[in-house]
């Protein structure tokens, strides 16, 4: 069983990697397996967790569950063309909920908290005594405040990027680009780790087994 499993895993691993050269039947096969199996996997887990788990085991005690089920049934009315338009109701419901939930959430966690975090002193008597630490913190805080401010100027929609305003927006886009470059470079290592994991598997678990 274990042997077979490792062979299957290796076969599929190489199938996916072969896509890097070009599209080919091996990749197509791996892709077809991936799509079919994973769609089935998701449905089965959804079924046991949500339908069986909540309505059978949980006995559907929460009346809210039945509201959800009713909306779900409305959704299925799409299959009957004549009254298919009713399926827009659950959609409208979901959109309304999502919009309402996100509005306050994002306002508080994205805007307010970040603004609050930017209120940092450029200079303070409380900073460490060593010159190095102080200079480091001062420069850091100035950069954070200036970068955030100019970045916001860049996103301003109501004014053309011209003159002094345009210049500030340019500083803003510099900061944003710096951010992108830095995060890109920083992610490389974790991406390589993933490949190391797969190569490890191929060399030691699979080829090591053949030896």
């Amino acid at each position, binding site marked *: 069983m274990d042997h077979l499993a490792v062979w299957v895993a290796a076969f599929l691993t190489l199938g996916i990697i072969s896509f890097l050269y070009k599209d080919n039947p091996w990749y197509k096969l791996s892709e077809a397996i991936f799509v079919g199996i994973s769609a089935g996997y998701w449905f089965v887990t959804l079924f046991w967790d949500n339908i069986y788990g909540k309505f059978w085991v949980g006995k559907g005690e929460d009346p809210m569950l039945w509201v959800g089920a009713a909306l779900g049934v409305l959704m299925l009315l799409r299959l009957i063309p004549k009254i298919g338009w009713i399926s827009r109701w659950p959609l409208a419901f979901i959109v309304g909920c999502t919009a309402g939930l996100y509005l306050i959430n994002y306002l508080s966690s994205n805007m307010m908290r970040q603004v609050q975090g930017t209120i940092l002193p450029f*200079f303070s008597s409380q900073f460490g005594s060593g010159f190095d630490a102080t200079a480091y913190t001062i420069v850091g805080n100035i950069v954070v405040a200036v970068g955030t401010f100019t970045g916001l100027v860049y996103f301003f929609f109501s004014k053309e990027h011209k003159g002094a305003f345009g210049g500030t927006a340019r500083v803003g886009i510099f900061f944003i680009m710096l951010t992108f470059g830095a*995060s890109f470079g920083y992610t490389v290592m974790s991406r390589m780790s993933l490949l190391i994991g797969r190569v490890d598997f191929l060399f030691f678990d699979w080829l090591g087994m053949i030896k």
Partner: protein
Amino acid sequence: MIIQKRNKITKVHWLLLLPLLICVSTPLVAAQSGTSANPFDTTLIVPDTAAVAAEPVTDLTVADHRYDHGEKLDLTWVPSADDPPVGGTVVGYRVYRIADGSEPVLVAELPPGTNHHTDEGTSADSSYVYFVTSVTTSAEYESARTEAIVPNVEWLNFDKKYLFLLALIVGGSVVIFIETARRGKKLFVRKIAGLEAVDDAVGRATEMGRPILFIPGILDMDDVQTLAGLTILGRISRVIADYDTRIFMPVSRSLVMTAGRETIKAAYQTAGRPDKYSDDMVTYVTDEQFGYVAAVDGIMVREKPATVFLLGAFFAESLILAETGNYIGAIQIAGTARPAQLPFFIAACDFTLIGEELFAASAYLSNEPKALGSLKGQDVGKAIAMAVIILGVVAVTIGEAWQVGIMNDLTDILRAIFSTM
């Protein structure tokens, strides 16, 4: 489940007799409690032949929790005299609740040194009495009981008054600007490069006779980025219907499939081409993140779309999709509000809508005054943020560097307003 509950109650009931029993027969109780009444962790039990005594807690009070709907009550007490920082006999406290004069129920076990607890299991239509026991390695000692209390229901959470105020200002200005625009006042919105390119990108696909691929991210309808992607889809498919180009939209969520179909269908109807629409334009692949990516990559290299839109919530797959799209030579317009994935779109796509621009895109593309008005409202929020940053930084710097009281007060006020609680 039910059986377990009953067990607990009888155990607790039995425990309540402990102090009494101790007087009668100390050795017996010690042996019994070691096995059945298990204070917290098994590792805590130090075998002992005599019951370890401890003073009960004092000054136990119960008060209503602020801004709840009656499900919380706050308890405070002074720890047992035998619970000093070092060397006391108390190994913890237990909080018991008596609802409407029924049997006491254990609601919490707390480490030594604790002097408060919030019980989150109450309801507004019952009255409650509490007591706390000091637990030693072999027994527990009951405190005096509290007065009966009925939890209050509050209808407004005043802790969130600043959040409400800001929501009102930002949301209000969005609404006001929408209203202003509806009345016909012209509003200026600057050009957004990625969106100026949409028409060209669709036109290019038409010229080349190749399809357009639209990916709305991998999250479901309960994410606002998916909604943003779909609203943009609505605008784009209008153009596509006009140009008579093919659009193809594989999705990873069934609900997004349904919503995507509605969106494209409506766009074709508005453009006067309902006959050209087909449900096959939107297909479900699989909910699995990388399974979906594998399939979309396959579609890309086989169908060779001329234009690829990646608009919605993306995770690690962002770069896999964008690099494959780049490889087949498609024009790519991407956008997401996930900052971690933006660098990859910037690197591999022709145009990238950065965060806020994704949400502004449909309004911008629609070119309707009302929608454009909402972008103005957004700018009010940005102006507030910018003003507060300047004001706050100046205030905190002056305040901390030269110890200016009024500036420190200002800083505190600003921080309080923008604190999320």
